[in-house]
């Protein structure tokens, strides 16, 4: 399933259940059939009009990544190198 980023944000101040994941990118994707869904972005940051593809649903949430970008395993390796110190937003 593929689509285009309609809008996006990076969440720094997360709700209680998501603080360990922050910062993370959240987006609304317009799928190619015209419907819109709210999901998460895996891998490199995307912006409005970026083409994305569905990776999988996790806990009912659709996860997308830039179309044609690296596989999940490659992405995980990249993500591990990108880890930044957690900060608490007061």
């Amino acid at each position, binding site marked *: 399933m593929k689509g285009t980023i309609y*809008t996006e944000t*990076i*969440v*720094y101040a997360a*709700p*209680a259940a998501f603080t360990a994941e922050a910062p993370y990118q*959240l*987006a609304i994707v317009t799928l190619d059939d015209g419907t819109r869904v*709210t999901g*998460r972005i895996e891998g490199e940051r995307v912006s409005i009009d970026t083409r994305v593809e569905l990776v999988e649903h996790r806990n009912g949430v659709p996860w997308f990544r830039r179309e044609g970008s690296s596989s999940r395993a490659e992405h995980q390796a990249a993500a591990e190198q990108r880890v930044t110190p957690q900060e608490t937003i007061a």
Partner: protein
Amino acid sequence: MRPVAVIGIGKTAFGAFPDRDLRSLAVEASQKALRNSNIQPAEVEAFYLGNFAGPSFVGQSHLAPYIAGELGLAGIPCTRLEAACASSGAAFFHACSAVAAGIYDVVLVTGVEKMTSTDTPRVAEILAMAGDCGTEGRAGATFPALFAMIARRHMHQYGTTREQLAAVAVKNHGNGAKNPDAHMRKPISIEQALKGKPVADPLTVYDCSLVSDGAAAVVIAPADRGDVQVLGIAQTSDYVPLDHKDDITTFHAVRTAAEKAYKMAGVSPSDIQLAEVHDCFTIAEVIAIEDLGFVRKGEGGPYTQEGRTCIKGERPVNTSGGLKAKGHPVGATGVAQICDVVLQLRGEAGERQVAKHEIGLAQNLGGSGASAVVTILECK
């Protein structure tokens, strides 16, 4: 239907009050409104309470009679309305409907929220419950995140800039500094606003309204009993999830509520001399002044940056400091806006009094636009 008047107003200060509980805040504001309207508790025929999440924030349900009992109102119908951040706007709308229909003559409407005894990640979680928990909530969306996505799209479609959003914050903090009851009474600079700690990109902490405790109340009655008349009022709704909307750069519910309220009042957007709008985030004020018809779509940012919504501008917006600086005890906000418009219309706004004050408007938004209430008030 009978015309309705606001005959008295009352507010607590907004802020973080560790030694105050929800009920004492609601009682203080209510008693002030009763005194201000010269009404005795025995004359009150119904009590409407706006409250978003008292049960989650303070662990108490059945809040309307819980508060009314303390006010000496036990016996009358007591009803709590929940419409996210438009809870007390909705309470005010339904109270006005009942008085207009002739069901009651004297009604007390109070809004209250007690938020600061809860830690920030939990506050974010409770507020997120005003969105779609199954999709937005499960994906990790906070309210700042939803409005950040709205801001991103508005910037993309209309060229709205970070500086224009910061101009909303700078103006409202400046106004809040003049309001003795505001939560935040410190002016901020544009540089400060731009360099704030990121909350949800592109919004920083200075783009977000405050987590506050506070209450506000009004007494309403048939129009011949007061000087401030409710000329027009409408409540509307829209889908809860943002991804169900065709265009997230506008709040459809606000546009339709405004159209109805203008029609009922027999006025046009150009007749509105001052407004309290729902600036839960800076982008929300930009969109509000567009949706209310004060400016054309996409011009809210430049109009604000040019200073035209300042106290001395052609159309003062949020002279109270808005949710941004006055504070945003969620359930209190809708009625607090009515109080602040009435204060201006009566010419009692002190240092922040605007020059022209015959007709004012209040716009209250729930969630990311699924509830809206627009009220137009005139001083006779």
